[in-house]
C-alpha cells in the first residue's frame, strides 16, 4: 500500500525537526517494539537508541528517503538484536515471533490509525467530546452524562453517531483492517 503522505524534512535534521519526528513516531514505534519486547522499558530503550543514533548520524542522513521506514526498520533490527543477545544467555525457549511481524504492515497500521484520528478530529464538537471521553479516557456512559450534564440517551446517540461517521469515512480502509486482524495485530 502506498503511503497517503510522507513526512519530508527540508535540509538536514535540526533539533526542532528531530523533536517533531520523535513526537510523531514514538507511540507507534513503541507499539511496534513491544511486539518483540513486551517489557515497556526494553521497548523504550530500543526506541531511544534508534533516535539517539539518528541524531548522531543526522548530518550524513539522506532526508529525501523515507525517515519513517528508516525508523521502523531500525526498531525492527535493534529489537531482533536484543532478542538474539538474550537467547545466548538463556536456555529458555524464546518464541520466534520475529519472522511473523512485518515492518510494512506495521507502518500501514499506523497510517490507518492516523486516518481514524483525523476523522475523530473532524467529528461535530459534542459528538467528538463524548466519543473521546468514552474511548480515550475510558469513562462509562453514566459518567459522561454526569460530567457533561446530558442525558444517558444523548450519550448513546452521540456514540452511535460517531461510529456511523467513522464507518462511512473509513469504508475504503476496512479491507485493510480485515487484513491486519488476520495478521494477529489485535
Amino acid at each position, binding site marked *: 500500500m502506498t503511503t497517503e503522505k510522507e513526512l519530508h524534512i527540508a535540509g538536514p535534521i535540526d533539533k526542532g525537526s528531530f523533536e517533531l519526528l*520523535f513526537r510523531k513516531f514514538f507511540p507507534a514505534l513503541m507499539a511496534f517494539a513491544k511486539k518483540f519486547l513486551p517489557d515497556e522499558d526494553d521497548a523504550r530503550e530500543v526506541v531511544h537508541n534508534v533516535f539517539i543514533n539518528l541524531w548522531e548520524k543526522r548530518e550524513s542522513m539522506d532526508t529525501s528517503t523515507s525517515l519513517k521506514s528508516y525508523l521502523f526498520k531500525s526498531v525492527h533490527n535493534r529489537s531482533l538484536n536484543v532478542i538474539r543477545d538474550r537467547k545466548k544467555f538463556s536456555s529458555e525457549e524464546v518464541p520466534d515471533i520475529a519472522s511473523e511481524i512485518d515492518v510494512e504492515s506495521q507502518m500501514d497500521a499506523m497510517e490507518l490509525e492516523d486516518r481514524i484520528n483525523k476523522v475523530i478530529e473532524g467529528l461535530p464538537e459534542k459528538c467528538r467530546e463524548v466519543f473521546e471521553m468514552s474511548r480515550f479516557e475510558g469513562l462509562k456512559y453514566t459518567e459522561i452524562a454526569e460530567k457533561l450534564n446530558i442525558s444517558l440517551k444523548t450519550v*448513546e446517540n452521540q456514540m452511535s453517531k460517531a461510529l456511523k461517521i467513522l464507518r462511512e469515512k473509513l469504508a475504503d480502509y476496512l479491507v485493510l483492517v480485515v487484513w491486519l486482524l488476520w495478521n494477529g495485530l489485535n
Partner: protein
Amino acid sequence: MNVMEKEELHIEFNDQIVRYLSDEMTVSEKEQFEHLINVDSEKLAQFSAYKKIWDGVDHLAARSKYDMDGEWNMLADKIDFEPDERINTSGRSLRMIVLRVAAALVIGVLGVAGWYGGRQMLMYERVAVESGIKEIVLPDGTLLTLNSGSTIKYTKRESLSYRMIKLNGEAYFEVARDTTRPFIIDAGLARVEVLGTKFNVRAYPESKVVEVTVSSGLVAMASKRESDHQILLAKGNTGIYTREKKELNLIKSGNANAIAWKTRELVFTDTPIEEVIRVIAHTYNVDIVLVDPGLSEFTITVSFTNQELEAVLNVLESTLDLKIEKNGNQIRIDSE
C-alpha cells in the same frame, strides 16, 4: 415490514452494537445480542465492520496514552544538544555584569516555551537570577535557592512519573520527599538523581566541572552519555564531573564550603591561600586577584559565620600581614 420500519430497526441495531462494544450492556442484553449476530449473517457482517473500527480506535487510544512531553524529556536528557538550546547565560560576560549591579535583581519569572504534544500542551517555567540570590518553591514543595547568574527551567505538570528540572549555574536544593517520583536535575552534561534531600549543584556553563555536594541524604550522579555509570553521594561527599574527560569522581570529604554562597559559613583548614581567595570570591560574588605570587605558599586555618566581606578581609589582612585594597570592582591582595 415496510421500508420505514426496516430503517428504524437498522438504526436500533447500530445503537446496540455501540452499546455492546462500549461494554454498556447488562449480562442478559449481551447474551441476547450475541445470539442475534450468531444467527443473522447480515447483522454479523454489520457488527464486524464496527468492531474493526472499534479496534483501530483502541490502538489509537493506546498510542495516545504516552505523556509525550515526559517522553521527549527522557530522550532529550540522553542527548547532548548543542548550546543553542541552553539558556543564554554566556557565563563570563554575565558574571561581569553581575559585579556592576549592586542590588539583587530577579530578571524574569516567565513561562517560555509551549510545546504541542498531540492533544496536550506543556508550559515550561523559567526562572533566572542575574544578581543576588533567590529562593523558589517548586510545585512539589521542593525549596530551591538559586545563585547569581543561574537559570532553572521546570514544568508545572504533576502528571509526570518524575520531577525534572534543568539547571544552568548553581543552586542549593532541599527536595521534598516523594519516593514515587524521583527528582532529576539536568545540569549540562551531568545528571543528578535525588534519593534523599539536601545538596548543592554547581554547574556554570563556563566551568570545566560540574560539582555536587551533599549536605544530607543520598544523591545519585551520572553522566548523561553513560547513564548506567553513576556514583552515589552521601553526606559530606562531593561528586565532580569533568566535562572534557567525561569523568566522574567521588571525593569523600568533599567541598566544605560548597554552600557558603548561601549560608556564608566558611571553613578553611590548612587551605592554600589561592583556594581561600577563590572560595571567598565565589561566596561574596566579587573578583579577587592575588598580586604577589609568593603568597601562594601560605595556608590558612580559620572559620567565619555569616560575616560581611569587609570583616572577612580584615581578618585575613591582620593575621597574614597582607595588604588588601579595593580597586573599583576588583579586590587586590598583595604582601605587606
